[in-house]
């Protein structure tokens, strides 16, 4: 007889592990399924470490903070930063729920410090927990709670019976076997879809399988055109590509480095003459990308960031006040001394915005329900929490609160909706789609398609968009879908760690992600936050809508629903 879990959690980052812990606490048997290794994959490890919490919530759990910083102010900052595109019900549940989650982390003995300042927030608001410490603590807590794990398992299809999700099918990368895992309730916590963009800060494996599986199972994707770009990331050399070190040594830390185009113009003056480089990250990203789009960029497709007007002392003394950079310029896994030396010699550094965080994703309500029976979602795989731009630290708050809600809801759901017969209607089809690239003997190597897709996303769905580029993207994507996707073939028959096969499955996910984003972006004809239309730089003063994408027959279709403003009215 097939083993049936009460709750299956897809993804082993913070959102997934918190969900797994809470489902287990509620008495469910829980399996965490992870594409890589739990504790060594996902975006949590790479997090800057912020967890936003209102000052009053910190005071309520006995920490020293600004008590006048209320949950209402936290909600308001989040919604203003998101250009009012947030689902305010989600924001409300985050700002009111995060204090209790922080208390739990303190009880678990996690290392943290209280923030003094937090960019974009109207107060210090929140704590700092390094991404590595967060991931390590949650891995241990989930293990101690009795959660089980299945690693190196690339989930590709949700198993369904009569419209409800009854498990997941995927590829065991260690053995090459295509397996089905059955559960009464499933939580998606697979993270963002950033690796479909060529220049990115996030890990390799965030390719959007969760978003794809959800929409194919009948869920709705929301605001998929909203990709947060982090400005001032390195474009070269290859070993440093995508690193956000210049952003940290510059604007993020309040250091007044100057952004210039190839004519030496400080182009931020055209966008925000007061804050200049210290403007919000969506604006700095849009401004930098606009320079490149209009032909004023640097050789590697970026712009210049310069510290030359500052005395070297400011750079020399920087590490003393930095949480992440050591005195000898060790940062993350790198020795940044050569770059710093170059900066001190007066050279500018080429930087560009990198895909950083998926603001759009699976549509959920404040109960983490997707609307598909047996399917819940939490964390970066979901959409609309952050609207059109995310404040620093809000992803940390989101994963903890939504993770708890999703885990508890899934445990209750698993109790209420137990089906004796877990046989899926789509078992054979799901297996066939997953096996297809392996069984095809000759065709296109998957990495070639992967490259073309990420270049397509970069061109059509970068920080600045135009109707022309979006339409070109749509045509190219349709061509690739009809003519190349069905031709994907693995060049090796090896079952173990067959990267061609994994790449082919990631390509399948990429199509849903990119197509949804193109549909959303083409339909949103005005500029807002992370979605900057070069052909229409003005914001829309009319009805503000969410882009929704769902399956209609055999095709993805876009529709809209007006944004509601239950807590903070739109001015």
């Amino acid at each position, binding site marked *: 007889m097939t083993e049936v879990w009460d709750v299956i959690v897809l993804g082993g980052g913070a959102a997934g592990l918190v969900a797994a812990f809470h489902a287990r606490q509620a008495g469910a048997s829980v399996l965490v399924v992870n594409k890589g290794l739990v504790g060594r994959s996902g975006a949590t490890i*790479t997090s800057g470490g912020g967890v936003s919490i209102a000052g009053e919530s910190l005071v309520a759990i006995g920490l020293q903070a600004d008590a006048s910083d209320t949950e209402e102010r936290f909600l308001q900052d989040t919604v203003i930063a998101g250009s009012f595109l947030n689902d305010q019900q989600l924001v409300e549940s985050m700002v009111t729920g995060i204090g209790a989650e922080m208390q739990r982390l303190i009880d678990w003995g996690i290392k943290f410090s209280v923030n003094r300042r937090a960019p974009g927030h109207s107060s210090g608001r929140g704590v700092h927990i390094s991404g590595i410490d967060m991931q390590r603590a949650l891995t241990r807590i989930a293990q101690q709670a009795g959660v089980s794990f299945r690693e190196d398992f690339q989930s590709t299809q949700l198993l369904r019976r009569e419209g409800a999700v009854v498990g997941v099918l995927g590829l065991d990368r260690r053995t090459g076997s295509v397996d089905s895992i059955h559960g009464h309730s499933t939580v998606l916590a697979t993270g963002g879809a950033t690796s479909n963009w060529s220049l990115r800060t996030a890990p390799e494996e965030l390719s959007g399988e969760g978003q794809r599986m959800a929409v194919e199972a009948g869920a709705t994707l929301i605001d998929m055109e909203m990709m947060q770009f982090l400005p001032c990331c390195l474009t070269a050399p290859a070993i440093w590509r995508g690193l956000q070190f210049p952003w940290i040594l510059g604007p993020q830390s309040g250091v007044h480095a100057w952004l210039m185009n190839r004519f030496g113009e400080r182009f931020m003056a055209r966008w925000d003459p007061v804050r200049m480089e210290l403007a919000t990250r969506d604006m700095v990203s849009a401004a930098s990308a606009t320079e490149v789009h209009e032909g004023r960029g640097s050789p590697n497709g970026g712009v210049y960031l310069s510290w030359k007007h500052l005395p070297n002392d400011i750079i020399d003394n920087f590490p003393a006040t930095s949480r992440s950079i050591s005195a000898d310029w060790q940062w*993350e896994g790198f020795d940044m001394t050569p770059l710093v030396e170059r900066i001190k010699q007066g050279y500018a550094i080429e930087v560009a915005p990198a895909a950083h965080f998926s603001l759009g994703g699976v549509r959920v309500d404040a109960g983490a329900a997707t609307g598909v029976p047996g399917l819940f979602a939490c964390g970066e795989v979901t959409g609309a929490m952050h609207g059109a731009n995310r404040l620093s630290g809000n992803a940390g708050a989101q994963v903890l609160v939504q993770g708890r809600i999703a885990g508890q809801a899934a445990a209750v759901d698993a109790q209420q909706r137990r089906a004796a017969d877990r046989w899926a209607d789509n078992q054979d089809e799901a297996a066939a789609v997953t096996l297809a690239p392996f069984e095809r003997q000759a065709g296109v190597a998957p990495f070639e398609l992967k490259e073309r897709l990420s270049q397509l996303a970069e061109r059509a769905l970068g920080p600045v968009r135009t109707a022309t580029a979006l339409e070109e993207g749509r045509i190219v994507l349709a061509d690739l879908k009809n003519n190349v996707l069905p031709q994907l073939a693995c060049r090796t028959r090896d079952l173990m760690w067959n990267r061609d096969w994994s790449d082919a499955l990631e390509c399948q996910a990429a199509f849903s992600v990119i197509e949804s984003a193109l549909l959303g972006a083409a339909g949103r004809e005005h500029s807002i936050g992370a979605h900057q239309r070069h052909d229409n730089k003005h914001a829309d003063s009319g009805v503000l809508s969410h882009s929704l994408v769902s399956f209609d027959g055999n095709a993805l279709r876009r529709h809209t629903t007006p944004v509601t403003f239950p807590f903070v009215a739109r001015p």
Partner: protein
Amino acid sequence: MLMHLTLFRDGELRQLDIQLPPPAGLGLGIDRWEGASVSTALQYAQRVFEPNLGYSLSCRRGLCRLCAMRIDGEVKLACTVALHDGIRIEPAKPKLALHDTVVELSLVRVKPERGAKVATENRIPTTT
């Protein structure tokens, strides 16, 4: 650019030398391999020379430690080490090797037959 690989395949260690062509024009955005990481080279080698080649890669910035390998005799993170001619790349620990350069680094895998010993063996020392 010559890479000497020692790969764990079908239960034994095998040697494989790969001569990478000059990177200009390969779409990697570099004109010298010295500006690329070992991970980038392995990725390129899998794509062009050796479709079977197994390697692990996640964060690309030295945080997740998934890409730990023995490079020129020392266990390092492949994503943070720059290439040089004649570089030697091996599994971090032959006893933990699974496939090619991929080794067992699971923090949560249950191995009842080996008990508590597993936890200490999994802790691969790194120089970073």
